[in-house]
């Protein structure tokens, strides 16, 4: 794997989760999910639409700040990305801070649209590169958006997977638990358990995270690198040179 960069692996893993979809939206300041969406588009034979917020050329919205949210509520967005300063084992995410709200010990930026989009976009992919017990906690201090809802709550969307710098989890909505789906190079079930504050399911034999194939790597380093550079020039030059 020495010739595949960590970022390229993450992009490839996420892109694989976006096949067969019609429309993926990506929030601001999200270069890896953005590149993953563009890679999935490059492989989709023109099927996939990608909306990158903050992009001049990949942002299709013309009805102001509300349009992304209305579009999600209309069911027109198949996948989106969220993250969290804390994420717990029920896929609750916390973007507000550490401690007892409102007298927090640490204050983060805030929840943005997560409190809404998590409910309405069928395939929300949680992405957080830092995989440590301070991020992946048993229970978040503040629920910016809940991972699961009580029966009877209108909810057409929710968590699909959690991609980290160490592994990939899928999320089982019935069990309300993460399940270890694959391990990045150098990781084991034990190493993941040690760095994860919540408990999770896993099979006896957890596969390694697939590396991007040659065609994908070529697309990624060529067309996708060019496309993502429009929105994230520093990221593109650092990763793709």
């Amino acid at each position, binding site marked *: 794997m020495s010739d595949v960069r960590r970022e390229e692996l993450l992009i490839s893993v996420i892109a694989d*989760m976006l096949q067969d979809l019609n429309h993926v939206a990506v929030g601001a300041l999200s270069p890896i999910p953005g590149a993953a969406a563009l890679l999935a588009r490059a492989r989709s034979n*023109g099927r996939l639409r990608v909306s990158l917020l903050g992009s001049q050329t990949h942002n299709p919205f*013309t009805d102001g700040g509300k349009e992304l949210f209305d579009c*999600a*509520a*209309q069911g027109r967005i198949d996948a989106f990305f969220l993250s969290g300063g804390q994420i717990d084992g029920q896929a609750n995410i916390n973007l507000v801070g550490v401690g007892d709200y409102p007298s927090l010990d640490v204050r983060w930026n805030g929840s943005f649209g997560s409190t809404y989009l998590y409910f309405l976009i069928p395939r929300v992919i949680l992405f957080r590169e830092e995989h440590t017990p301070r991020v992946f906690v048993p229970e978040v201090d503040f629920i910016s958006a809940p991972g*699961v809802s009580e029966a009877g709550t209108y*909810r057409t969307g929710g968590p699909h997977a959690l991609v980290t710098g160490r592994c990939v989890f899928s999320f089982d909505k019935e069990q309300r638990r993460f399940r270890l789906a694959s391990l990045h190079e150098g990781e084991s079930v034990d190493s993941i358990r040690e760095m994860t504050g919540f408990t999770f399911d896993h099979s006896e034999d957890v596969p390694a995270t697939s590396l991007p194939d040659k065609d994908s790597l070529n697309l990624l380093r060529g067309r996708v690198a060019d496309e993502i550079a429009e929105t994230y020039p520093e990221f593109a030059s650092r990763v793709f040179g």
Partner: protein
Amino acid sequence: MRLPETTTPAEGVVAGSTVDYSPPMTQTLTIEQIADAIPDGSLIAIPPDYSGCAMAAVRALIRRQARDLRLVGVPSGGFQADMMIGADCVQSVEAAAMTLGEYGAAPQFVAAFKSGELVMRDATCPAIHAGLQAAEKGIPFLPLRGLIGSDILAHRPDWKLMDNPFSETEDKLVALPAIRPDVALFHAAKADRNGNVWIGVRRELMLMAHAARQTLVTVEEIVDEDLLADPVIAAGTIPGLYITGIAVAQNGAWPVGLPGCYPPDHSHLADYAAMARTEDGFADYLQRHIMPVPAAA
């Protein structure tokens, strides 16, 4: 890696909620394909005569003998609705009014209304807009002021009086249910190859597209440049994301005209208004102006 779907449908979904808007890429169609893409019984949102009416597509719908269409005038119906009603395509109309404007009453509508063949759901302009906005926002209803004490409200059992949850004293509003058209159908000046459609200040067309499951558009031309690339043009453009199919129809809004492009054909409209006053006259109009298949563009 493709993860398995752990649950289908998603846990927690309220039964009966439909989420089927996910947009495939915009298709380029012919006028006849536009008509074929609108099944009998569809709920169709159409603009008023002064906005952008897909008259060529309406004629194709009549030629394919569409039946049981349920029209929503946004907010009123004019020539296109009257023609479809006269040609027996229409089961019901929801609108704030049915009128040929300066050409007077909509004669085929009045005849069908009085015969009892047509279900008319009389509304008021802002209620139609509010219903579409509710669909645009993915909410089941929007509350609105006004309306209370009118016979419009009295004859709309589907509209509900509700209490303002923020008022300590009694304060009623009217809850208007979302209007989710199966199809929004209109005509515009131009589209591009990504399915983006320029509509300028005619934002009711954008609202219709946001609210509808499918949006079918006829345009004067399809241009090569990306309409979203120029920020001035983009401001009046519906993204292709919302557009199911586009057909080129030059002069496609004739005879009602397209604001900014060509005016109404006043003498033709006056002829229609006169001919449509009788069954024979309307049949004659149909044979002369609607049934002949136009030469391909």
